């Protein structure tokens, strides 16, 4: 811990930066881009008021969490709060999208959807998981155009170790054409196969009936190929009902990819921009994001169409869509609703608070306390031990987990369904955060807080340091007073006061929820 945050905070306090209400910023909702115009048009139609902008302190924490799955460090918070440039939010967004943690976190979300898991029931096996995860993460990191990413996944052939995209065809509930069609529809179109007619389900399955698998001499290597014994033309039906006949010399998967990845295909762009929107906004425009069907229309069709157009126009640049959303006044609203209309949340009239993802929450607790976790894989023997500094958002393999991650609803990656991730609060979670030796031990023994205790000049310095570390904002005067009262009245020593402050802040809604 350097001394600079304290100096900066002192200046901030002098400048009146430590507001009484830490959540709302100045002014009212002012549309800034096309996203906002689409959102506002829908809200006006229904006479719903949007929320005002969030404060800078809320923004810096929020955008770090949503874009990188990572809490800002105290010095990053103070640098941002102290920055007086009018475009500082846009600059921060640009910087975050270039960070390694952005690639880590986006890869995590993709790998949830793609079911990247070594063991039961997906059984990719460890080597293939590592190769596949690296491929997905590289695609994010290099910002591979999404049309190319989708086509590579859909048409890959070769070894699961050497052509990692082929694992798309291995990470399915089964290997029969119906199971493959189910996975393709869910992952690429956001469609659950049951919502298609029986004829279209069968027609889609036919497109994947030539996908074949064979082993090699190398342990757990597997080749995905087109069935060499296939002869004659193949009759199939595309999801829009169009019948196709495919010759034996054509990869039927490429026929599907050609049909899917096309400007006038209603499913392709909508599915992916809706997914990105849901990742950043806490719920989809179509919700759940993998349940596109006539009976589940988008809350704001114009918004969904706009995002799709922006994706296509940018050359399928997903980072462009991230930037568009994160820079919008819609994203930058206060979490505190101004409307009690029950549709306000589904129409994005405020920032939707959400409990931190299991991995993000755990990494945040580790960052605050300076502790870590030893992840290990029991397969294959000998066991694999991951380095101590490996963060939960970096874990490639859904089969490598911890009791904390399980308890807090990390997805099992059994199905790839959005609903597999649960950010609901449960009784055991509450007990764990309030009263476990795990959390208490990290607070008491973690090196980070010992350093805070040593480094702070006085009680207020320590309180400020802890607030920046845990809540990414300076404390308000009443909060400082409450903590001083606690130090006086509770029968605890100074270090216990600090521990109890960290414990209390970790258990606040403000910490547990992105807001």
């Amino acid at each position, binding site marked *: 811990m350097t001394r600079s945050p304290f100096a900066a905070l002192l200046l901030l306090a002098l400048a009146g930066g430590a507001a009484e209400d830490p959540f709302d910023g100045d002014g009212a909702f002012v549309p800034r881009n096309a996203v906002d115009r689409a959102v506002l048009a829908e809200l006006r139609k229904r006479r719903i008021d949007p929320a005002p902008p969030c404060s800078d302190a809320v923004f810096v924490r929020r955008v770090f969490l949503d874009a990188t799955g990572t809490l800002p460090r105290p010095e990053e918070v103070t640098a941002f709060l102290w920055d007086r440039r009018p475009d500082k939010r846009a600059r921060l967004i640009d910087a975050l999208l270039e960070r390694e943690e952005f690639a880590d976190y986006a890869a995590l979300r993709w790998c949830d959807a793609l079911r990247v898991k070594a063991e*039961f029931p997906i059984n990719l096996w460890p080597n293939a998981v590592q190769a596949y995860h690296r491929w997905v993460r590289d695609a994010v990191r290099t910002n591979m155009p999404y049309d190319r990413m989708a086509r590579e996944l859909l048409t890959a052939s070769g070894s699961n170790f050497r052509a990692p995209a082929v694992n798309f065809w291995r990470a399915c509930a089964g290997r029969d054409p119906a199971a493959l069609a189910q996975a393709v529809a869910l992952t690429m179109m956001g469609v659950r196969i049951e919502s298609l007619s029986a004829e279209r389900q069968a027609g889609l399955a036919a497109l994947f009936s030539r996908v074949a698998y064979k082993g090699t001499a190398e342990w757990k290597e597997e080749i995905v190929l087109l069935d060499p014994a296939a002869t004659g033309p193949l009759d199939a039906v595309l999801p829009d009902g169009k019948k196709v006949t495919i010759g034996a010399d054509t990869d039927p998967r490429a026929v599907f990819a050609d049909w899917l990845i096309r400007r006038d295909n209603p499913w392709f762009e909508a599915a992916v921009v809706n997914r990105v929107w849901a990742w950043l906004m806490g719920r989809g425009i179509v919700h759940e994001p993998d349940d596109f069907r006539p009976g589940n229309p988008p809350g704001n069709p114009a918004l969904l169409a706009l995002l799709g157009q922006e994706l296509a126009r940018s050359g399928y640049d997903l980072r462009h869509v991230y930037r568009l959303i994160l820079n919008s006044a819609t994203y930058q609203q206060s979490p505190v609703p101004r409307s009690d209309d029950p549709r306000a949340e589904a129409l994005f009239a405020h920032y939707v608070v959400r409990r931190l993802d299991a991995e993000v929450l755990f990494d945040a607790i580790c960052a605050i306390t300076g502790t870590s976790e030893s992840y290990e894989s029991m397969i294959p023997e000998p066991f694999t031990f991951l380095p101590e500094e490996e963060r939960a958002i970096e874990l490639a393999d859904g089969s490598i987990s911890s009791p904390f991650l399980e308890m807090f609803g990390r997805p099992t990656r059994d199905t790839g369904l959005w609903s597999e991730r649960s950010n609901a609060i449960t009784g055991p979670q509450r007990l764990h955060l309030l009263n476990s030796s795990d959390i208490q031990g990290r607070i008491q023994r973690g090196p980070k807080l010992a350093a805070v205790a040593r480094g702070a000049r006085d009680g207020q310095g320590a309180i400020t340091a802890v607030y920046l570390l845990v809540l990414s904002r300076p404390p308000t005067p009443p909060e400082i007073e409450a903590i001083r009262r606690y130090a006086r009245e509770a029968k605890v020593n100074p270090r216990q006061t600090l521990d109890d402050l960290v414990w209390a802040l970790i258990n*606040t*809604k403000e910490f547990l929820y992105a807001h």
Partner: protein
Amino acid sequence: MIQIWLWGGPSHIDTFDPKPAAGRDFCGPLDKPIPTNVDGVEIGQLLPLLAQRADKYSIIRSMTHGVNGHETASYITQTGHTPGGKRLVHPAVGAVVSLLRGVDRGYKGEIPPYVVMTKALGRFSESGFLGLKYKPFVTGGDPNQKAFAVEGIVQQGVTRERQEARRKLLHELDALGRAMPHDLRFEALDRAEEKAYEMILGDAGKVFDLSREPDEMRDRYGRSKFGQSCLTARRLVEAGVPYVAINYEGWDTHKRHFEAMARMLPDMDRGMSALLADLAERGLLDTTVVWWGGEFGRTPRVQWGEPWNGGRGHHGACFTHVVAGGGFKGGRVVGRSDETGEAVAERPVHPRELIGSIYELLGIDPVGPLPNPLGLDLPVLPAAAEGAPGASRRLGEILG
């Protein structure tokens, strides 16, 4: 219901299905089975206490599913479902009981309805498509330590006074909660906090306080992690918890198997026999199913060479499970393995048949519906129409 899960797969021929005539290549040093208090039934020589209680339990010696991978075998043995081409992962028996006999029946206990000691299974998601709400409460800690430090419930080093003071501090610092007083998520969090403190500061957590048991009782169960887990399981069942599982580690004995058996079987013998006797003495055995078994058995033929040095591999073709109480008759043997214990000779029993029988005893309709995220028509167990082995069969010979 108490499930004793032998993690890794216990050897059937060294426990409840001895084969003394098969010779050293199969039995190793464990070739002298002992009689039990049931005429004609012999069990392994390292289980003398269980031999005195054989009237309490029944042995199924013809369990089979044919799978030798831990994960898939665990899934089949704990759910009754077979994977492959299925859209969703089914919940384990504990999660089904937690839903249908716990939450749906208005279970109001402060202790969660599905408790696992002390570590989670980790082979597959126990709650499957039922999701987070039906995951087991995993205790952590070790009941054989001076205090059983159940994660989240038993906290050492923070006094009650400090607990109460810092809770007040937490409320004073709850700025976002005050800014959004009507948020439904936050209301749920507040309710969870209320319940958590009832447990932390109230009496419910005392069920894990084994110092409330007389020393003789603790000795009777054995002063080991497993023995004291069995004792805790009895206390939990007494307190009305519908499903308690003990994940008993160490049975994946590929190497030096017989040394491991000499060490572990006396521990198992003591803990499990004390549990059965204690439940019976308290009149709880009639209403409590006890289920013993792992994901498979172990290869009856011993691997004597390097690197195994007397090891046993995975064996899903034929293995043994044991059931007692809750309506299961005791003192019976179901099915028979062949002369070496490698194959089922008579009356094959698929895990599905055993689980279906357990469900019937618990009053759960095996073909009743389970809620799932896709809204599919999914029964608790697969219907006979799917051609699943054992789908409609029940263990009639030991159902009371």
